[in-house]
């Protein structure tokens, strides 16, 4: 069957299935009687799992409770977030620095929990940026983005960030091969000049992410990856497509070969070659951004080189496993034995055996070489094929009972099949166009099982319509029995491209409730109203401000002139859980600030015209929230209005608190304003 026939028949089948799904009662019949009970989490009760879903093109992460499907938090990662000033405030702006300058948006795809012994350990979550390749680390005690590393010599960081069994590395592979290092060449010279790269990033120490080494690969598209585990620990697997090395009309030209490849990388072997100095140091321009805990301010560092390993200089490090038709997913079962390919245009699901692969390598069962990388014989490594699995298999996760669950994009369904016998056991339609799916712990060595979550691209008739753009969705399916049972669907923010989940008990008691004011080393921290005030440095006015229920200090500022930039350094001096304050000024062209207890954040404001501008608290904080406001007066240049700030101590309480706390060791401290300005 030619490719054209396959894709045409697939599309026809997809259309037929969509038609069958729409406008009849089939979806409703899928829900059995106790579905509502299975997902009902009573008021005041907590969900059993945290589920971390990528926000796709929103550039963010979203956190949902399972089984309820309740949205718990949106965490900004690669996109500016006016809701709390992330990417706008002076402390967080450096997080979005790249070698291209500040990049305020990206496309997040694959969340990965940090792991110990192949299972989530609740320390961190990693997530990739697809467009301008980066990997971020989120801290699971604060649910905040703490670190971002740009990946050089890369374009389209799609096969990222997959993590090894003990979080030694998070790994990123290039989706769009490019000249490495990038340079001005005719696109027609793709075959000579374009290269792929696999980046191994050290990940097991906060603030220290770094490119340990890159492997230079043939110029294909690398799509997804997974670390080996258990039996196959020490190996890493990546899917490739476009082994045709096409550079135009890829939908046709990159779909010609009968087989593409899974690249198997023995990273322990590669590590040895790196240690033995078999790499070349290549100039590269990239950024490493990280939060300093004591100041809660980000630093952006420029990096200038990377260690590059050529497979030819490290024999035994890289092999190719032939895999039918543009494989997307490469997923390793809990025992580490089976390597499941998901050929999005394939009519079977091919499964390789790790044991057979090692034997084939020993026996040199090769079918030639590509750029010095041995290609193993398909028959020597294949363990089995799942026949007639459905259309467009993409991604597979596993339960703890030897079953695999594969998402089928074109036929919009999840197919359950048995490892070893390769027989299809069950199917469940999903609504619609599923990409990844997720079983809590389903990429680990001991999946928690219980549910599979379908991450869907299209919702059509699932919810109340909202114009031309409809939300994307997740669907929760019970997998505890022989047959899958649909329990719930819920809308998601952005594209829920992939997700990870862990038992809530693993992290819920470790949550930071407030940041210690005592330990706050921000250069402009104010720990009591008596330390607040204003100061001028040339055209810069620095306001050190306290926010506490229910006022700001200072709350009356004069002497700012047009042409000045005002830096508002606001500290929320509350030390009480969930008592936040916000800050915004009339006409501000950046964003508001939202301040967690004990946190200092700075936002710059450049007034354009004389006048009096109110500022106020934007986060409803107390019965007197509406009274939490103040004024700043802006005068014409040279008007001679003395810079001053009215600081009105709220009560003796504040004096007591100030006396109990050490004063800020701060050389940049503004002049102390006399109390009682009103």
């Amino acid at each position, binding site marked *: 069957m030619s490719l054209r026939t396959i894709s045409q028949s697939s599309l026809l089948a997809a259309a037929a299935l969509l038609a069958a799904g729409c406008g009849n009662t089939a979806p409703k019949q899928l829900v059995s009687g106790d579905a509502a009970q299975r997902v009902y989490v009573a008021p005041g009760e907590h969900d059993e799992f945290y589920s971390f879903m990528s926000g796709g093109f929103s550039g963010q992460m979203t956190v949902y409770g399972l089984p309820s499907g309740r949205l718990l938090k949106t965490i900004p990662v690669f996109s500016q977030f006016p809701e709390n000033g992330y990417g706008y405030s002076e402390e967080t702006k450096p997080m979005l620095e790249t070698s291209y300058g500040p990049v305020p948006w990206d496309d997040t795809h694959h969340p990965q929990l940090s792991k110990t012994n192949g299972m989530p350990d609740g320390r961190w979550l990693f997530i990739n940026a697809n467009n301008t390749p980066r990997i971020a680390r989120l801290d699971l005690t604060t649910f905040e983005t703490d670190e971002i590393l740009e990946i050089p010599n890369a374009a389209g960081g799609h096969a990222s960030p997959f993590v090894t069994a003990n979080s030694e590395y998070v790994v990123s592979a290039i989706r769009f091969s490019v000249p490495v290092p990038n340079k001005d060449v005719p696109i027609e010279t793709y075959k000579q000049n374009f290269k792929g790269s696999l980046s191994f990033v050290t990940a097991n120490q906060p603030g220290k992410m770094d490119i340990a080494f890159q492997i230079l690969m043939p110029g294909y598209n690398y799509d997804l990856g997974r670390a080996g585990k258990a039996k196959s620990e020490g190996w890493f697997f990546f899917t490739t497509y476009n082994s045709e090395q096409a550079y135009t009309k890829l939908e046709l030209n990159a779909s010609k070969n009968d087989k593409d490849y899974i690249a198997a990388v023995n990273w322990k072997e590669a590590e040895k070659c790196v240690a033995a100095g078999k790499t070349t140091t290549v100039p590269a321009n990239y950024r490493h951004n990280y939060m300093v805990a004591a100041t809660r301010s980000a630093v952006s560092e420029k990096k200038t080189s990377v260690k590059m390993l050529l497979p030819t200089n490290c024999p035994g490090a890289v092999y190719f496993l032939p895999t039918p038709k543009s494989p997307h997913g490469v997923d390793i079962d809990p025992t580490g034995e089976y390597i499941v390919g998901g050929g999005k245009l394939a009519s079977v699901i091919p499964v390789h055996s790790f044991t057979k692969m090692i034997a084939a390598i020993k026996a040199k069962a090769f079918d030639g070489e590509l750029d010095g990388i041995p290609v193993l014989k398909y028959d020597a490594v294949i363990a089995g094929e799942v026949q007639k699995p459905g259309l467009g298999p993409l991604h597979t996760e596993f339960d703890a009972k030897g079953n695999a669950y594969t998402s089928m994009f074109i036929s919009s369904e999840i197919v359950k099949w048995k490892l070893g016998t390769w027989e299809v056991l069950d199917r469940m339609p999903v609504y619609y166009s599923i990409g990844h799916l997720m079983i809590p712990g389903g990429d680990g060595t001991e999946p928690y099982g219980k549910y599979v979550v379908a991450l869907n691209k299209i919702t059509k008739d699932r919810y109340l319509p909202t114009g031309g753009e409809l939300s994307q969705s997740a669907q929760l399916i019970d997998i505890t029995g022989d047959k899958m049972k649909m329990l719930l669907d819920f809308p998601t923010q952005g594209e829920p491209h992939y997700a990870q989940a862990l038992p809530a008990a693993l992290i819920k008691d470790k949550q930071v409730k407030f940041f210690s004011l005592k330990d706050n080393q921000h250069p402009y921290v104010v720990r009591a109203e008596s330390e607040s005030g204003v100061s001028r440095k040339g055209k810069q006015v620095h306001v050190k401000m306290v926010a506490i229920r229910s006022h700001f200090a200072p709350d009356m500022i004069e002497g700012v002139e047009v042409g000045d930039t005002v830096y508002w350094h606001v500290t929320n001096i*509350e*030390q*009480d859980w969930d008592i936040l304050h916000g800050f915004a000024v009339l006409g501000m062209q950046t964003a508001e600030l939202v301040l967690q207890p004990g946190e200092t954040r700075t936002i710059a404001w450049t007034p354009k015209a004389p006048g009096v501008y109110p500022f106020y608290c934007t986060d409803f904080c107390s019965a*007197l929230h509406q009274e939490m406001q103040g004024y700043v007066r802006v005068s014409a240049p040279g008007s001679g209005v003395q810079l001053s700030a009215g600081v009105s101590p*709220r*009560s*003796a*309480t504040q004096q*007591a*608190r100030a006396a109990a706390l050490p004063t800020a060791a701060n050389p940049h401290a503004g002049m102390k304003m006399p109390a009682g300005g009103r």
Partner: protein
Amino acid sequence: MSTRARLLLAVAALLGLVALVSPLWEVRLGAPQYPEGLGLRIYAHTVTGIKEHDLDNINGLNHYIGMQPITPSAIPELVYMPWLIGALVLAGLGVAARGSRRGVLLWLAAFALLGAVGLWDFWRWEYDYGHNLDMEHAIIIVPGMSYQPPIIGSKQLLNFTATAWPGLGAIALGVSFLLAAGVWVGTRRRVEAA
């Protein structure tokens, strides 16, 4: 007095040491927005929050009704109370050494007096905090309402339910008093029997 009675007296006296290290009283506050609660521990020498920042947070909330902040360093009783308890312990040990029933009675009388004055003083402080409000800083004023927490038991103060209860230190003092009183009563019976 028997060696056993004197030993029991010594134990009673030494129980007073518990009151130097354990809270004498606890006040807990709960409100809809504070499901985890806020609380104070009153020791012989200081006042602390039950959680790290409870005292600050209580003071912060109290400003809405113009209540004075609770500043341990400004409460003179917290300076001399440990000495008084210490003196009581030493006196008790002295009485145990001498084994005089009259001494026991005197010690019990001093103990009772100290306890009564202590409780009255505590009540007086609470009365002052609850009634002597700074009207300039009082944001929420309910005419005629006082904000005096109870000595023992529960009371509703605006959105807060305040519950006060003796702490381990006060319980140890109570046990100490009862033990000494028991020794006094027990030795009288023996005298009568003889």
